């Protein structure tokens, strides 16, 4: 095991340590007895609000509310971004928005196929719901399995929730797409790697990027549909757009809203470390059970959802690294 440890230390030295971000305390006080998420919209830019989930893993205590949803009050209707993990969340999100503005919601956008991006769609049945066409297909294919899993994890919070995929699939050929909505110039772009279809929304009027699942901050990234090389390339693309002044503020789906590229760099650092860890361990001949027990570098150890999310990633992806090494010929020594 000594060599395994050395490999970890080497990898840690290569990745440039990403700057850490303050994580504010969870603003909501979910009440399980009343099934009240206590959603508290917070304004982050003109007309722009986020409802922040806990920076944590799913739990009944947080109502499985771990996602940041958002809405933009444009002057010509509201654009809603992501609808949370359940029917109840969507309903309470809708009421929270109605408390802030009388403008009607003109569209609802889900940035990818994961359940907390669209399980609140039941509350928006009378509004256009959009997602990339590939995401819509994924929601349709996997929605029931997501529901099974979330009912198991979240219990009563899921009451009455049925997977309700977005109806309007955006053809990737039509992206990037700029929408002038009221006083906001919004641009939709397609990237990939966190899932096969990652939609991002840039509000050029306010300089806010809704980054979806491509960017995590102070929280271990989830990887059930990851394509690691493409994800890293998408993060580089985002960093370039930031350098070109296309956005200033980043709203990740999980983790604190922040200015700059700290979240982009954290996510990139993690993906590089994780893949190097798996490759190095497979070449050393370690079994999955041993890799699950390797120490995590200090800079990642404090992140939310550690080690559960790391273990999910290793359990899902390490067998492929093992397999490549097994069929790849004789050992180096």
């Amino acid at each position, binding site marked *: 095991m000594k*060599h395994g440890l050395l490999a970890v230390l080497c990898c840690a030295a290569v990745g440039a340590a990403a700057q850490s971000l303050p994580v504010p305390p969870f603003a909501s006080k979910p009440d399980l007895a009343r099934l009240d998420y206590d959603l508290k919209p917070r304004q982050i830019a003109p007309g722009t609000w986020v409802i922040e989930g806990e920076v944590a893993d799913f739990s009944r205590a947080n109502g499985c509310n771990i996602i940041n949803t958002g809405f933009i009050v444009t002057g010509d209707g509201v654009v809603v971004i992501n609808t949370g993990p359940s029917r109840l969340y969507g309903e309470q999100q809708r009421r929270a928005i109605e408390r802030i503005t009388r403008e009607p919601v003109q569209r609802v956008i889900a940035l990818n196929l994961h359940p907390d991006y669209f399980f609140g769609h039941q509350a928006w049945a009378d509004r256009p719901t959009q997602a990339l066409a590939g995401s819509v297909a994924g929601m349709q294919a996997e929605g029931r399995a997501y529901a099974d899993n979330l009912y198991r994890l979240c219990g009563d919070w899921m009451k009455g929730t049925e997977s309700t995929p977005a109806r309007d699939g955006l053809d990737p050929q039509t992206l990037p797409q700029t929408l002038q909505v009221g006083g906001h110039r919004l641009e939709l772009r397609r990237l990939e790697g966190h899932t096969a279809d990652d939609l991002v929304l840039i509000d050029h009027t306010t300089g806010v990027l809704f980054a979806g699942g491509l960017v995590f901050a102070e929280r271990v990234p989830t990887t059930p549909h990851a394509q690691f090389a493409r994800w890293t390339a998408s993060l580089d693309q985002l960093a370039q757009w930031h350098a070109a002044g296309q956005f200033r503020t980043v709203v990740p789906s999980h983790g604190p809203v922040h200015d700059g590229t700290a979240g982009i760099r954290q996510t990139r650092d993690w993906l590089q470390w994780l893949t190097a860890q798996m490759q190095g361990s497979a070449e050393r001949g370690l*079994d999955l059970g041993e890799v699950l027990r390797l120490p995590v570098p200090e800079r990642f150890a404090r992140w939310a959802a550690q*080690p559960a999310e790391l273990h999910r990633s290793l359990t899902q992806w390490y067998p492929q690294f*093992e397999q490549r090494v*097994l069929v790849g010929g004789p050992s180096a020594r």
Partner: protein
Amino acid sequence: MRLIGTRRQWLQSAMSLVAVPAFAQDDQTGGDPLGSMQYPSLREQTIGKASARFTDQVVVKGPAFADDAMNVPLLVDARGLDKVGGGVARIRVSVDRNPVRQVLDFEPLRALPMLAFRIRMEQASPVRAFVQTRDGQWHVGSTWVQAAGGGCTVPGLTRADGSWSRTLGQVQARFFNNVIDGSRRLRLRVMHPMDTGLVAGVPSFHIEQLELQDAGGQVWWRIALHEPVSENPLITFELPTASPPAFRLVGRDNNGNRIDAEVAA
């Protein structure tokens, strides 16, 4: 969802276990440090009427949580018994709360008394390694593995897509040096669907026995596998550093298919 539909069967068998007063003593767990009521019947099923000493000289490690209930990684290490009772003769792994409880039976022979492998788990359960030393004594180590209720989250891939028949019995193997002191690691995969027999219309179909032979026909270890071992079993063995460069892996499944492959560094 291979194992789905077995819950009721399991519940029925569990109920009957509780009801049968086969171990009418005050402690219905047979002294199990994990407090499992299934332990006494598991022990009897695994080692018969013999008694077993609970010990941390037998290390069993599983994940904190079985994220993939079809592939739960387990490590068993009985090197702590190297100097006890003449050393380790065999290791039997079994699971209290699985529809099929016997996992494998390993005779280390010339190998180290340790191995890593993956199994299917239907629900959270203790996992046991019953280790018999050469003097006939049994020693048992345990761990508790948490798993999601409902067990499987992913169907057996090669059974689902039909590809198993093209790879049946293929062997992949590789040696690794210096992973642990004093050992030469052999990681071995045999392609096999390892059907549990618990899915409607798919009878039990699994590797029954494997052994590692050197050029002179000497056997270095022997292992019998049961249904809970995961599809396309990947098993990690530890051989002495002074072991031959090349071996032959020989075995069969319960349908009589032969497994026979060169295993060389």
